[in-house]
Structure formats: C-alpha cells, structure tokens
C-alpha cells in the first residue's frame, strides 16, 4: 500500500538526520533528569518531553514535504496515503521512544502502576503526531508552526492541572493517567485519560486530513 511506502521512506528520510534524531530523542531525557528525584514529576516531564519531541518532528516532516506532495498527488496518490503514511512513520518514531523510556522509568524509578506509566507515554506519543501535523497543516511556515507548538507545550506544562485550561490542552490525558500511575486512585482517571486522548487524536488526524485534502486538491478535469 502506498501509505506504507510513504511511511517507510519518511522514516528513512528522518533517520538520515541523525543529529536531529538525537536531539529529539534526548529532549525527554533532559526533562527527566532535571526532576529525577521525584518519581511523579520526572515521569510526567519525561512524557511531556516525548510529546513535544514527536509533535515537533512531525511538524517539520510535514512542512518539509511541501514541494513533493503535489507531484505525488499528480502521479495518482491519495491524500490519505500521503499524509497517513507520514503520520504512521512519526507515530512509529514516537512508539520507539516510548519503549525505550518506559524501560528507563521501570528500572530507575519506583512507580506505583508501571503499566499505567507506559500507557501514559503511549497515549502521548499517539496524540503528538497528529497534533504536530495539524499545526503544520494550519501554519505552513516553519517558524510560525514551531512557535505555535511551543506555545501549546508551554501552556500544557504550566497550566494548573485542576483548571479548565489544562483540560483543553492536548496532553491532558498524560496528566490524568499519570496521576493514577504515580499516586494511584480510581481507575476512572485512566478511562477519562483514554477518552481525552482518543478525542484529541481524532481531531488531530481528521483535521490534518481535511486541511490537506483542501491544500493538495487537484482539479478533476474531464478527459478530452
């Protein structure tokens, strides 16, 4: 399927920029190390770092392929396969990060519900890619897109978890599930987290596809 070829090549493309990859992979680590003494803080910051890294990566990948995508469309590819392929690739990168960091947390911290910590990271990685691509779709200039993403992540980090602003932020699910993972509590939190992540994922993916369906539209001329 075309989407998988696109995903494969997207991954290769990104894989060649190993300096960028190192920085992307390392970002969560710095977040983690700074708060390493506190199990809760460190794990949450780590997760947020994963979200930020993956969404930034996706933002740039989506913007970088601006000149190629119309040609792929003319050759016959559908928007779903082009954009879907890129999303699959970046989600894959995110999942790789999650696996690595989950093991780190498992060894290095004493977490109440380790599986929930893993789930928290997983949800964040899954949500991050559509978030990055949605911003990329809305703001096709790299600087503007990066600044928008930066603002979102900053607010995410600084907002009072109890307030309404926090609930509207894309990575709120990480907070919910994370609270359960570290401090325990009702399983309700996990369900709420899953639901929130699901909605954000849907909005991000559907929004991205819709916008690119419009941006990459090719006039359907009848045959002569």
């Amino acid at each position, binding site marked *: 399927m075309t989407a998988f070829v696109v995903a494969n090549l997207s991954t290769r493309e990104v894989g060649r920029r190993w300096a960028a990859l190192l920085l992307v992979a390392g970002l969560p680590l710095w977040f983690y190390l700074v708060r390493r003494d506190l199990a809760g803080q460190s794990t949450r910051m780590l997760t947020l770092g994963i979200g930020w890294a993956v969404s930034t990566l996706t933002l740039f990948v989506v913007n970088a392929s601006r000149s190629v995508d119309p040609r792929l469309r*003319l050759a016959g590819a559908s928007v779903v396969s082009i954009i879907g392929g890129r999303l699959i690739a970046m989600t894959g990168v995110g999942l790789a990060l999650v696996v690595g960091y989950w093991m780190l947390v498992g060894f290095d911290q004493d977490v109440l519900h380790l599986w929930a910590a893993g789930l928290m990271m997983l949800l964040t990685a899954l949500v991050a890619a559509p978030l990055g691509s949605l911003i990329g779709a809305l703001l096709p200039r790299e600087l503007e897109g990066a600044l928008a993403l930066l603002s979102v992540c900053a607010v995410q980090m600084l907002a009072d978890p109890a307030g309404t602003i926090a609930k509207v932020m894309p990575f709120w699910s990480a907070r919910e599930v994370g609270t359960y993972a570290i401090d325990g509590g009702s399983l309700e939190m996990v369900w709420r987290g899953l639901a929130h992540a699901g909605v954000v994922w849907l909005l991000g993916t559907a929004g991205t596809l819709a916008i690119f369906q419009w941006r990459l539209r090719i006039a359907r001329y009848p045959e002569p």
Partner: protein
Amino acid sequence: MIDWPAVFEAELLRLGLQPGRARQLSEEATQEAADHAGTPADLFGPAHLYARHLVAELNAPDDQRGRQRYAPGPVFLSLAGVTKRYRRYTVFSGVDLTLRGGEVAAIVGANGCGKSTLLRICAGLTRPSSGAVRRTRRVGFVPQDGGTAGWLTAEEHFTLFGAAAGMVPGRARSTGVHLATRLAWRPSRRQRAQQLSGGTRQKLNLVLGELHAPDLLLLDEPYQGFDQGTYLDFWQQVFAWRDAGRAVVVVTHLLHDLQNVDHVLDLGGGGDR
C-alpha cells in the same frame, strides 16, 4: 593533446547518445581523419565542440522533403478560453489550445506574465478563473527546480513516486534506473538528492515526471548555466517524448528557436488585457 576520440565519445554520451552509437561515431571520426592524413583535431576542431555540433546537426529540422513526421495522436489536453484573474488583476485571458500526442506546445512570455500559472492550471494544481480545461488523467509534472526530497536517494525517489502511481517498489526502481540510463545518468545508490549537482537533479526531475509513463508531460524549463559536466540537453528530451507519441507542454523562459514546436502560446508582457 588529450585523446580526441575519448573526449568526443564522452561528450556524445553526455549529450544523451546511446553508448553504442557514441562509440561508433567516435570510431568513424577517427577513420575519416586517417583518410585525410591528419588528426581528428585538425579535421573537426576541438572534440567537445564538434560533438555538440554533430548532435545539433543530427537533430536540426529537416527540410520538408526529408522530414519524418509522425501523425498526431489523440487529444491529450484542451484549453478553451482559459482565463486567470487575481481579484482585479487579469494574468491572462482567452487561452486556447488543442494538444495531441506527438505534439509540443511552448508557453512563452515575459517574466511574471503567468507562464508557470498556466502550466499549473494544465496540471490541475490551480483552477482557472473561467474557461474549460480537459486533460488526460495520465499526466507528469516537472517543476523548474525543487520538487524532490533532499534526504532521499534517487532510487528512493523512484520507489516513492512509483508507489504513488501504483507501481511495486522493485519495478519502480528498475524503471527509474532504465529511464535514467537513457539520459546518460547512472544514479548512485548512496548520494542523496541534495548532494546531486544541478544538472543531475534536473535529470532526476525529468525521470520522476515520466516514471509512470504519462501521456501528457508538463515541464517548466530549468535554469540554464549548470555545471558543464552534467548539463542535459533538455529540449532533446522534449523531442524524444514527442517522437514517442506523448504530448508535451513546456514553459520556456529563454529565447529559443521555436521552429520545431507545434504550438506557441505567447502570454505577452503581462498585466491587464
């Protein structure tokens, strides 16, 4: 003096001739010089200049009697009264064209008069403000520059573009490599697109445009003046496509001898009409 036949043959290859033909011409030139009891340089002048001259002569328009003309094929593109307006500003209006397979159309005009816009309308990347466009579905688009992924190798590009057209990766790669050979280019497996020289990137763009064997090719003429080593005779490729029965639309930015072209769309000096 450096080996005249070798330089001659290398230049012919660079100009896109098949290796066998290039070697044959080189041997014949050597023999002809021997007949004249002189060196090839004496008889023909500098090797690379003679090679260019020879290829130009062989491609030059034949006078009416000798010309081999293929009968034009089905209509692959038709424009009727195509107009493009941005708010109050009319870029061009009333463009008409009926283009068949085996024909070449050139879009000319001053800078900024909308040549690339018209090409994009033909592709479908932009819609006309008014007028009707009909086009075959099998179309290839070759931009002036860009349109490639800098971090991927040539073969990976073939795979990507081939997959977009529904080709299996293996077949896409082999087709791409084969088309590249016709342009006297052997894509390196290691080099990424951004590491390619300008002329080689042009060749990559051309191959990607025709990878899925389109009936209609839309080309934006690349800038001239690339490094000598990989300069491609762009128009030679255009006429090769025409002779293969395809329809070609070329946006040309330079003054050219347009005698060989079947249709010329002159968009003039730009501005309101």
